[in-house]
């Protein structure tokens, strides 16, 4: 805290430059809010996911500079892999065969120069299906986690702000949700409502809202009476302004760390639901469903049917966990 930069005296040139950076910061916030809005609209409205693709592209462009760690002059591997996965989901499907086309080759042929990941029992191209599956798994994972953040984070902060009965009721409800195993809860709801992609996203989001609610609540509680919040009150700011300008930005990092873990969870839940047959309808390519279709073949030595989608799930989840770690430690 006692460090003073050596060019403390007099130079007025950097002022304008820094002001630019300041405005860049607020424009990033605008992008984030706009993204959230488009995301919600896309979920409710757009069955073909076109808007979602636009959003994901924007996000990818925003994240891209983070691949290079300029301080240590190295590539951040987790960010690079994540970006590759996102790009794969976005433009990969343009370069593959039709994942639904039956009998591209013989059924259950092993990996070869022509069919890199081999074919499944219906002769479909597994490589094409893994690539297309990325679109669905990442799409569902990200949007479910985003929806959970959008609902859970303000609710958690509000719980601290309002306190009292509001806080208690909210906590009891979230405890009720959390007392069920996540998968079982999702299973029950899907069994009752029937599987479709928007419903899956919605359900995965719902079971994750309590996570963000509690996380935000515990992160906000120690700073809700911090001096800088009192100062903002002295400045005559309204409570909501204080919440969004001073409190939520200060818990952003904690929540962001949880977000990437949460995307991984969402993909796991989706894969698990698909594995037991309650996820996406056949024949849509989805990693979890593909693992299930392939596991009977394992005993006959036809490993490629479920191993390749399995590796895709593994890579994605490991990458997201690694990302979350990086965010938490601020590197």
């Amino acid at each position, binding site marked *: *805290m*006692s*460090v*003073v*930069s050596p060019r*403390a*005296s*007099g*130079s*007025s040139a*950097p*002022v304008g430059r*820094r*002001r630019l950076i*300041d405005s860049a910061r607020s424009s990033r916030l605008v992008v984030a809010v706009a993204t959230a809005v488009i995301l919600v609209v896309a979920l409710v409205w757009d069955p073909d996911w076109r808007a979602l693709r636009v959003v994901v592209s924007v996000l990818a462009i925003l994240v891209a500079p983070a691949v290079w760690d300029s301080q240590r002059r190295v590539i951040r591997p987790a960010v690079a892999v994540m970006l590759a996965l996102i790009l794969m989901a976005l433009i990969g499907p343009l370069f593959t065969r039709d994942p639904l086309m039956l009998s591209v080759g013989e059924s259950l042929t092993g990996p070869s120069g022509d069919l890199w990941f081999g074919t499944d029992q219906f002769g479909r191209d597994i490589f094409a299906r893994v690539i297309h599956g990325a679109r669905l798994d990442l799409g569902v994972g990200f949007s479910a986690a985003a929806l959970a953040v959008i609902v859970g984070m303000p609710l958690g902060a509000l719980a601290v702000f309002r306190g009292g009965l509001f806080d208690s009721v909210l906590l009891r409800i979230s405890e009720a949700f959390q007392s069920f195993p996540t998968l079982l809860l999702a299973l029950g709801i899907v069994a009752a409502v029937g599987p479709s992609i928007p419903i899956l996203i919605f359900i995965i989001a719902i079971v994750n809202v309590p996570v963000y609610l509690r996380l935000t609540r515990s992160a906000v509680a120690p700073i809700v009476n*911090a*001096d*800088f919040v*009192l*100062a*903002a*009150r*002295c*400045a*005559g*700011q*309204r409570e909501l302004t204080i919440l969004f300008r*001073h409190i939520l*930005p*200060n818990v*952003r990092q904690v929540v962001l760390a949880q977000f990437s873990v949460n995307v991984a969870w969402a993909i796991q839940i989706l894969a698990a639901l698909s594995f037991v047959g309650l996820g996406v309808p056949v024949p849509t390519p989805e990693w979890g469903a593909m693992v299930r279709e392939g596991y009977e073949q394992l005993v006959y030595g036809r490993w490629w049917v479920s191993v390749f989608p399995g590796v895709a799930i593994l890579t994605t989840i490991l990458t997201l966990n690694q990302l979350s770690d990086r965010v938490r430690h601020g590197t």
Partner: protein
Amino acid sequence: MSTQTSPNGGPVVEVRELVKDYVTRDARLRQHIARAVDGVSFEIGAGETFAIVGESGSGKTTVGRVLLKLTSATDGTVTFRGDEILDIKERHFRPERRHMQMVFQDPLAAFDPQATIRSSLREFTRLSGIETRLEQNEAIARAVRSVGLEPDIVDRRPSQVSGGQLQRLSIARSLLPEPELLFLDEPTSSLDVSIRGQIVNLLLDLQESNDLAYLLVAHDLRVVYAMAHRVAVMYLGQFVEVGARDQVYANARHPYTRGLLEAAELDEPPRRGDPVRLVGEISEEAATKPGCRLTLRCPYAVERCEEPQPLRETSAGHLVRCWRAVEQPVEIGLPPDD
């Protein structure tokens, strides 16, 4: 020194019988009431510094926070610029906040860590109705110069600035809305001893040039001596001695005040009366007693001290909450006259 008055006649702020209870509930939902402030009255005039001294836990910071309506009061009245403010709803009070500002103990905690100092300062320009960015930046630059810093420092983040500089910026920020009353909550205690003097001098200069009323809360008796016109000594929610600075410092009547001064080992002013050594520590259980709350720590405590003790005047403007100091000064080691 008697109370000075603001241009419209009365004091800037007038506090009467202020009470603040903190209600907590334990695991069995039983209520526990802790009375942090118990019937405090004072007033501050323009250009005057009123200081409250006392140990941690005496409730002195709470007084200031209630005064600025950052915490609700349980009872009592606060009249600011002629208007009773405790009953005003926050919504209507917000524009009035420009007239009363606060300087915090720890400047690093008083600034939003993820915002630039400029944006923290900018918030405070809105209160005085400055709308355009250009004018806001000019106001910020003026305020930062007035506390002796270069304006381009505001483009850093709080963690990139030294503690002393940050406290100057905190003072600059509190002056941006051009307040009449400044609540100084231990403004020097988190700073290095070497820069305390600078901050004290800065505050004195600013008071003189802006005719500011200061409510100073501190436990550093040297800082209080340098800044205050009048001093109140607070113990467990009550004022035990109130008076002009020299009355309290040179002629302390209450055993608690004498104990504090003794412990501080001040070189000046010379004190009259025997030195008092306080024993034990401040304990909140004593805060519920009807009588004197110091009896367990006071070398002069007798049976009558357990009766309720009003603040009594020993000489003009000098109030003491100790019957022995008024009626039996010689027995408790004081010179007979005030």
